């Protein structure tokens, strides 16, 4: 059951989307999200959808994988839709049942809202599916670089993220092992009341934490042995460099953003 956790799952590939600089993808995603919130009509949503659909097509990420990632978020999506249907004030009443009124405006708004969330999540998935965690942290470190001037520990943060990502599979494996060890001694994780099930987790968490601390200690020693001394004077094997493809993407994104502003201006 623990193997199902898909945290920032990466699909290795060699599509143009994969080859983009991670910084480009991060910037484009931010602009895309802002543009998504500017959209307010069928036309503008259509333009946004076209942009997203083309990106997905180029990335060659299977639609199935995107849909699979969407599953846990289905509830939020439906909930938002329902809220918007019932609580949007409007003139054109379609159904009226006592205090509950469903209006045409409410329906339209609900559809828009759900589309917006759906496209927002899909866009974010596209980033994590096409970018390896390590280049993602590299990209973040590089983009946040200027914040070092206000003493934000940018390098340390990205190093922490990198190590955390590295140890997720190791710790999952370990949790599995501990659970099996406890089950072998008769621990029961599946039945009983909610309280007793929560209590059953304690014998898993305690050894897991102890081992995590021990690992952290050993890892710190190993890192020191490999001359780690913080971000100062550290170089990178893979230098991030914007290429022609990145400039093209930036131009396209800029066009999209301008289009959204113009469309909004004309009330579309």
């Amino acid at each position, binding site marked *: 059951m623990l193997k199902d956790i898909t945290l920032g799952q990466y699909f290795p590939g060699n599509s143009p989307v994969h080859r983009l600089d991670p910084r480009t993808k991060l910037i484009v995603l931010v602009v895309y999200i802002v543009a998504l919130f500017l959209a307010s009509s069928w036309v503008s949503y259509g333009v946004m959808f076209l942009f997203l659909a083309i990106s997905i097509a180029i990335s060659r990420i299977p639609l199935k994988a995107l849909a699979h990632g969407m599953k846990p978020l289905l509830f939020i999506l439906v909930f938002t839709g329902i809220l918007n249907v019932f609580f949007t004030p409007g003139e054109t009443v379609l159904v009226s049942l006592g205090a509950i009124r469903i209006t045409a405006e409410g329906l339209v708004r609900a559809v828009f809202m759900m589309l917006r969330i759906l496209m927002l999540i899909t866009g974010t998935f596209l980033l994590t599916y096409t970018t390896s965690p390590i280049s993602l942290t590299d990209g973040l470190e590089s983009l946040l670089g200027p914040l070092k001037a206000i003493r934000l520990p940018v390098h340390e943060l990205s190093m922490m993220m*990198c190590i955390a990502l590295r140890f997720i*599979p190791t710790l999952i494996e370990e949790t599995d092992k501990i659970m099996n060890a406890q089950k072998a001694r008769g621990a029961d994780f599946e039945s009983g009341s909610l309280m007793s099930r929560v209590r059953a987790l304690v014998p898993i968490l305690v050894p897991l934490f102890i081992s995590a601390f021990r690992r952290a200690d*050993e*890892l710190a020693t*190993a890192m020191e*042995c490999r*001359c*780690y001394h913080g971000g100062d004077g*550290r*170089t990178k094997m893979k230098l991030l460099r914007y290429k022609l493809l990145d400039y093209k993407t930036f131009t396209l994104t800029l066009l999209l953003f301008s289009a959204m502003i113009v469309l909004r201006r004309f009330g579309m």
Partner: protein
Amino acid sequence: MSTAISVEHLAYSYPGVDNTPGVAVFEDMNLTVEQGSFVAVLGGNGCGKSTLAKHFNSILLPCGGKVYVCGIDTADEDRLMSVRRNVGMVFQNPDNQIVANVVEEDVAFGPENLGISSPVIRQRVDRALRQVGMYGFREHAPHLLSGGQKQRIAIAGIIAMEPKCIVLDEPTAMLDPKGRREVMETITALNRDKGITVVLITHHMDEAAQAQRVVVLHAGKVMADGAPRDVFQQVQLLHSIRLAAPETVELCYELNQKGFNLPLDRLNDEECAQALYDWIKA
């Protein structure tokens, strides 16, 4: 030959907790390791092997005496980086020394810390991965590799820094026989082909037998020091500190107790079989 590591009158005790007295590990320890040699350090649990290893690259600093690495005093804080650059260290658990989640990124970690330019790092990483025979796995995730493969990645991460000396602290303790063989082959090849000084800390006799020199530690003192053939002949000494000689030597020793007269310097199966054959024929 010049000296890679020299330990002079080393004294060290672990500090006590809450006013309890500390535990003394070394009182007067002396040891020199020649440049380009392959030394195995043997000893039972708690004899101070790992503590000694930690002195070789300034993780622990001596309470008394000096440790020199390539002529540099390990207690000299200003030259800490040059000490660690010269002496690479590989630990027992491969999982806890791999930093990145892509093999080549992890191998690049050390050189990146040294501030080397990016094309040179690329060359070094590729060379190091070829040396340990893991080049084909450079884009894999480390957690999907076997223990032996992970340990070879850890070794590649050290040799990418191009140290003069590698200290391995029980690198095969958590591996299966296949992984152990892979790691031992990698270590011997590094010593033979690249002339890197290797200090192998182990409690496997057959691994120690592959070294040029064996140092037996017990209670913080050097009990025996010399070529494997000479050290392992002292079976009684080894038994007195609860160590065993390699299996072939043990066999000959047992048979000698029963009235045979076999040489005790046969370290591998074929030599041992030959000795038995010769004795029976005579």
